[in-house]
């Protein structure tokens, strides 16, 4: 009888040797005449345990990790195919506390199924929502999403139902559904994990959105920094078409939905929805002024539903289980769950899907186990490069959109980057300005020019030149960026800068040091 073994095909797992581990398992099984079925799944998101190998036994799946290629012979010797004892044996994955404590809705299948198998997808509940949606009235679908309380998971947290209703009510010869898969925030990888670990759920969510608003064309704008996800998603689209999830006769009905993938080209600003539309149209990724809102005048001027990967990938769960069930999770006006991502200097980095309301301290210590270096965690940046840096005094704030904003933070896309006490916050503030200078689209002056001036002002502070005057100037510049920028790029760049300045003022008063030599001229390039 054949034994089934899972080795993740997630790019983070591959980055620490999962391909070599998979090859070693196949090779040794062949040498020993063992009939072994190797499945490349997504990652469970327990990255410090990657490559995380699972074997299907009579007692269910048993996990081993981290399994490097050199460990594989000893695993065979220990009888791991029957769940045998070994120093890397972790037991049933679901019993690992990190996973057991989670509330996985959007990620319910990731790491469990073969990402490219429709049969596996459907055996784990996939496809039911699309079949239900094909029988439903569009307005009822919109109502269901509205009642669930689902808000945009890309960071802006706009209520998805309102967006859908606007597009449904718009009259046009063509409407679009666009998925923003330009996950550029440092510290985030949940979109990538869905794309690589359960791509059909995103496809299903997009088709349901199309049925709800009357759109028959969809685009996924995928960042070029995710070449592995592109390969998996491309294959998933083919399989979805063959299985009737896409195309001209959805599930044998007379409804249709066509989906296209477009590759980004390394511009962070194209994660901003209007810049992304420009890029999809084949132009420079320059931000558009709003109004008109994309829901009324989006891609090629047509009504367009734009959502992040996570928002769309959550739609099937809501349609399948009901909006009331989804809304049971969460806190305040933040309903449901958010897949948080623990990153940076953290001992157990990974994907933690929890209902809104969990605190930073629980995530950093109960899940993350403190810093990777063993030193105290001094600062945490939440919500990507435009998110504030928070000191330990804010670690007990619940992570829901409103409560976190009241504490001066931004939940954003749920990325959490930890820094230990060796961090120099003046340099992190400088980097925030530098990043804005590199990635600004150049449309508005505060962002385009203010960011470069910001780097220069912070350099003078670091060098110890007229600190009081330059710090006043920096605050003034941040005020201009906040209030006069066209989009969140310039508007929120002051958040990391000012939070560094307000929470860690001592770092701006260190003994004068040379500014990071020449870095700006080496990396900032004009568009």
């Amino acid at each position: 009888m054949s034994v089934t073994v899972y080795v993740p095909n997630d790019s983070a797992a591959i980055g620490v040797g999962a391909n070599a581990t998979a090859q070693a398992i196949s090779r040794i099984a062949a040498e020993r005449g063992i009939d072994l079925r190797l499945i490349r799944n997504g990652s469970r998101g327990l990255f410090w345990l990657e490559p995380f190998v699972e074997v299907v036994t009579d007692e269910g799946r048993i996990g081993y990790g981290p399994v490097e290629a050199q460990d594989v012979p000893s695993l065979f010797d220990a009888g791991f195919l029957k769940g045998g004892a070994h120093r890397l044996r972790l037991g049933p994955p679901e019993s690992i506390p990190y996973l057991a404590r989670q509330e996985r809705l959007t990620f319910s299948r990731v790491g469990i199924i073969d990402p490219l198998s429709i049969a596996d997808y459907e055996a784990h509940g996939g496809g039911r929502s699309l079949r239900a949606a094909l029988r439903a009235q569009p307005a009822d679908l919109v109502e269901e999403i509205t009642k669930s309380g689902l808000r945009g998971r890309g960071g802006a947290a706009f209520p998805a139902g309102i967006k859908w209703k606007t597009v449904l009510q718009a009259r046009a010869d063509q409407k679009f559904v666009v998925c923003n898969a330009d996950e550029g925030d440092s510290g985030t990888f949940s979109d990538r994990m869905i794309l690589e670990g359960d791509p059909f759920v995103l496809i299903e969510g997009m088709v349901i959105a199309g049925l709800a608003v009357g759109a028959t064309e969809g685009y996924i704008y995928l960042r070029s920094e995710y070449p592995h996800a592109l390969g998996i998603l491309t294959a998933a689209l083919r399989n979805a078409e063959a299985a009737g999830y896409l195309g001209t006769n959805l599930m044998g009905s007379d409804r249709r939905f066509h989906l296209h993938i477009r590759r980004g080209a390394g511009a962070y600003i194209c994660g901003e929805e209007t810049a992304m539309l420009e890029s999809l149209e084949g132009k420079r990724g320059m931000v558009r002024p709003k109004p008109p809102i994309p829901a009324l005048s989006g891609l090629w001027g047509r009504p367009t539903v734009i959502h992040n990967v996570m928002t769309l990938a959550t739609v099937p769960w809501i349609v399948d289980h009901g909006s009331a069930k989804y809304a049971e999770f969460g806190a305040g006006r933040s309903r449901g769950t958010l897949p948080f991502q623990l990153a940076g200097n953290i001992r157990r980095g990974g994907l933690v899907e929890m209902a809104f309301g969990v605190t930073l301290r629980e995530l950093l210590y109960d899940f993350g186990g403190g810093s990777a270096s063993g030193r105290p965690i001094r600062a945490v940046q939440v919500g990507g490069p435009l998110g504030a840096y928070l000191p330990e005094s804010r670690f007990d704030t619940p992570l829901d959109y409103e409560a976190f904003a009241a504490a001066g933070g931004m939940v954003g896309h749920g990325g959490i980057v930890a820094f230990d006490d060796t961090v120099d916050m003046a340099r992190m503030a400088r980097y925030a300005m530098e990043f804005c200078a590199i990635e600004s689209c150049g449309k508005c002056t505060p962002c385009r020019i203010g960011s470069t001036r910001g780097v220069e002002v912070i350099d003078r502070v670091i060098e110890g030149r007229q600190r009081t005057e330059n710090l006043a100037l920096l605050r003034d510049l941040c005020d201009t960026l906040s209030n006069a920028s066209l989009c969140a790029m310039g508007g929120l760049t002051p958040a990391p800068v000012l939070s560094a300045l307000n929470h860690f003022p001592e770092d701006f008063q260190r003994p004068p040091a040379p500014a990071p030599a020449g870095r700006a001229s080496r990396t900032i390039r004009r568009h």
Partner: protein
Amino acid sequence: MEPRPPASTSQATPGTRETLATIDAVIETHRSLPGALLPMLHGIQDRLGHIPGGAVPRIAEALNLSQAEVHGVLSFYHDFRNEPPGRHSLRLCRAEACQAMGCDALETHLHQRHGLSFHGTSTDGSVTLEPVYCLGNCALAPSVLIDGEVRGRVTAEKLDRWIGELKADRGGNP
């Protein structure tokens, strides 16, 4: 290492016949796509490793755009390059999560040990170093992307080994 010069369309290097044939084939494949310009540029760079200046007027004509518009798009995006890269691509992530795990020290190491600076190619033409802002591998930082494959928990010693392998490998990018 000089920063790369701005893309020039006026000094379009007359490509070889094969280069132009490749460009024309890519243009032909993509010209009817809505929003065809980015797929076209990617298609050309995937095959040739860069976008030769000679491609710009051909793309402009196929899409009924001005050469300035094509150049504007080409120069906006960090990915596109108008000169051939080294045989292998090394991209070092310098976003916050990787900074928290010491990517700045790796950048310094690449410069001091291997003479590699951002946007520059090693003198033997084997490796081009580019910065990248997040590879989605932030739980296993610091990260690099080598010829399209992510590697995590990178150390200076691992970089030395991988660069040695890249330099020894005569194959690689077009």
